[in-house]
């Protein structure tokens, strides 16, 4: 980064505390980069297992750093290969304990290495305003800018980084929010509703299993009309599934959870900037319309780190509940102190009021960034995706462009309500290809329901092994569908 490169890195770790095989994949470029690729240029092996496990992805030109050395030896070697002066490493390591011994090792590594990649020199000052964040940090940024008062949670990967980031942020005197861990996800959502109904801004975060526990109370938020922001960070299910890996299997869960019919907003940010900004929109919409807003993310978005230059713009925050009020889980009569009712007139009237509210929310959301178009706008071949898959699709598109294949990419951000503009966009397409991290293509189900578009099975690119899409592999997959 300090050399002026754009960086994307993702983490692959197992659900254990010590041991196992954990690795990070780092990609960098002189142009913005949003994902990793499958092939490896440099493999740094901190143990013997690493080389064995990643052998298959090595090319003839790949460099492998291995042997019985410490981390800092490899760091020195790596700096030499990348053509970065060892002094830069020295500067970065200054804060570390055992600095002198560590640097000794690094110098050894640096001096022993003879290879270099010969990377082009670029101007490190070209983008001095660059940010480097993971999705979780971006969400935290958005929540704090929106005036978060309480974050309630029960630890669950991959939502926990939010709890940790917000927890640490309590040490900053400029922040006033509190992070509260309670006995279960059921307690978490109800405590958040309790704080919210007396006028505080509350947010909760969990993954699929914890969200399942919350859904009765999600319906309560819908009935009683209490604002709430819920971060649902997906991992592979069903059940406990694969705790520390990524998936997009909970689109339908976010859309359909909770009994009865009530309004909700479901937003799926696709990158770091969107993660921050859509969190702000969740707070804004949930307060304005007193509804639950679900921010739908996943492990890959929440824990991968990316550089970006664009400014983050957070929607102005509002407070809906400013005086003591009465709320009811029963259908209740608003003209009579919110007393529970069984009157057919009131039941019907209330349901119609909720439907009317839904229509108003739909209208407002049409003015927001419900979707984005990338690539060749005139192409009648459209790749559709949502959430963290965006990064790999953008990079795959770039690979295809270099091969003179220019297609359109439609990123859906607002799942609920679903913009009519997306339907118009899809109506223009001759071929729709979906890319998703699940096995049943829940996005295709969404498009069928909302836009009456049937995606052919052969045009569904689905990955459901817990791993994120990789740009080079995805480009090949898309290309296969273009024949």
């Amino acid at each position, binding site marked *: 980064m300090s050399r002026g490169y754009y960086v994307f890195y993702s983490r692959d770790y197992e659900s254990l505390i010590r041991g196992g095989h954990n690795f990070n994949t780092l990609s960098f470029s002189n142009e913005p980069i949003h994902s990793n690729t499958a092939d490896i240029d440099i493999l740094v092996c901190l143990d013997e297992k690493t080389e064995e496990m990643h052998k298959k992805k090595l090319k003839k030109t790949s460099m492998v750093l291995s042997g019985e050395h410490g981390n800092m030896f490899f760091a020195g070697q790596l700096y030499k290969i990348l053509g970065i002066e060892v002094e830069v490493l020295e500067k970065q390591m200054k804060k570390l304990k055992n600095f002198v011994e560590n640097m000794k090792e690094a110098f050894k590594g640096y001096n022993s290495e003879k290879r270099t990649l010969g990377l082009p020199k670029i101007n490190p000052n070209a983008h001095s305003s660059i940010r480097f964040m993971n999705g979780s940090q971006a969400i935290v940024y958005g929540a704090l800018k929106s005036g978060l008062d*309480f974050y309630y949670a029960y630890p669950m990967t991959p939502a926990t980084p939010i709890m940790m980031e917000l927890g640490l942020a309590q040490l900053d005197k400029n922040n006033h929010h509190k992070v509260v861990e309670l*006995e279960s996800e*059921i307690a978490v959502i109800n405590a958040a*509703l309790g*704080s919210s109904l*007396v006028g505080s801004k509350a947010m909760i975060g969990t993954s699929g299993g914890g969200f399942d526990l919350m859904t009765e109370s999600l319906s309560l938020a819908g009935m009683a009309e209490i604002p709430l922001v819920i971060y649902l960070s997906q991992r592979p299910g069903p059940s406990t599934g694969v705790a520390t890996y990524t998936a997009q299997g909970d689109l339908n869960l976010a859309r359909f959870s909770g009994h009865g019919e009530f309004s909700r907003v479901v937003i799926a940010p696709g990158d770091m900037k969107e993660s921050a900004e859509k969190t702000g929109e969740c707070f804004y919409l949930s307060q304005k319309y007193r509804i639950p807003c679900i921010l739908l993310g996943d492990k890959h978005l929440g824990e991968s780190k990316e550089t970006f230059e664009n400014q983050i713009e957070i929607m102005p925050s509002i407070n809906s509940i400013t005086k003591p009020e009465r709320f*009811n889980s029963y259908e209740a009569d608003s003209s009579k102190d919110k007393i529970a009712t069984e009157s057919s007139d009131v039941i019907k009237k209330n349901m119609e009021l909720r439907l009317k509210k839904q229509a108003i929310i739909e209208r407002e959301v049409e003015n927001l960034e419900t979707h984005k178009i990338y690539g060749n706008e005139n192409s009648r071949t459209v790749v559709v995706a949502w959430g963290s898959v965006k990064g790999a699709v953008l990079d795959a598109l770039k690979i295809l462009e270099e091969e003179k294949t220019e297609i359109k990419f439609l990123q859906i951000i607002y799942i609920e309500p679903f913009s009519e503009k997306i339907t118009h966009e899809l109506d223009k397409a001759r071929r729709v290809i979906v890319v998703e991290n699940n096995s049943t293509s829940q996005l295709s189900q969404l498009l069928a329901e909302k836009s009456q578009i049937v995606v052919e099975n052969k045009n569904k690119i689905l990955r459901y092994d817990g791993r994120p899409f990789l740009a080079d592999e995805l480009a090949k997959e898309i290309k296969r569908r273009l024949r």
Partner: protein
Amino acid sequence: MKEKNKMKTKESDKKKDKTFNVRTSAQSTWCPGCFNFMILAGFERFLQNQLKLGKKKEDFAIVTGIGCHGKMFDYINLPGINALHGRGIPISIGMKLAKPNLNVFEFAGDGDSYAEGIEHLVHAARYNSNFKLIVHNNQVFALTVAEPSPVTERGYKDKTTPQGVKLKPLNPIKLMLAAGASFVARVFADVNQIQQVLEEAQKHKGFAFIEVIQPCIIFHPDVDYKQHTYNLADVKHDKTNFKLAMERAEEFDYDTLKSSTKIPLGIFYQKERETFEELV
């Protein structure tokens, strides 16, 4: 003249009383003679007293669960929420964290507190969240017509248990003591007892657990509790002594009453410590 003056004061009294009216316009739908009326009247008197002492209605909030007791929300005109079954406690905790000065009174049933939401009860005691929980214990699921609850005595029969309940009931007083509740009390559904215990609970800084024995006159009518009760204050019970509190709690196990059964009423245990709101 004197008579006229008297009339005047009476009228102004009436006006004054109106400002202390804490009821909604709802017509009560409890069974005639239901002991819930006693709990409602006791809370109403407590509230009116608080308002007379200078507190405002906005200083109070109520939370209720689901069951016959839940209708308290419809009858008392205070801000708050009629929550989900068993989930009132975390709502109260969230309200108190957001507004520590708000006096939150939660009414719940034995189903809410001892069945569906028992984990919240245990943790509320552990956290010492500064709200007051009043459990209407009628030892039966009344609103769903007569199924046994975790505190129903052995041998009790209804359509779902024609051969009688076989499980030993839970002793909530012991549970609350073990969980670290800083105020543990049991009263009978009697207006004065309710008012008095609420006043004590209001003065207590921290979580207050108040169980009210409230016989259901329709589904659980054949038990004459009153013959068995005695007041802990009358025997000079030391409410700061945890061991003694446990011993008193063991006197009544919620099972079928024998002629020798004694049911202690009043405050079993009270010891203040830092509240959740102070610690979080």
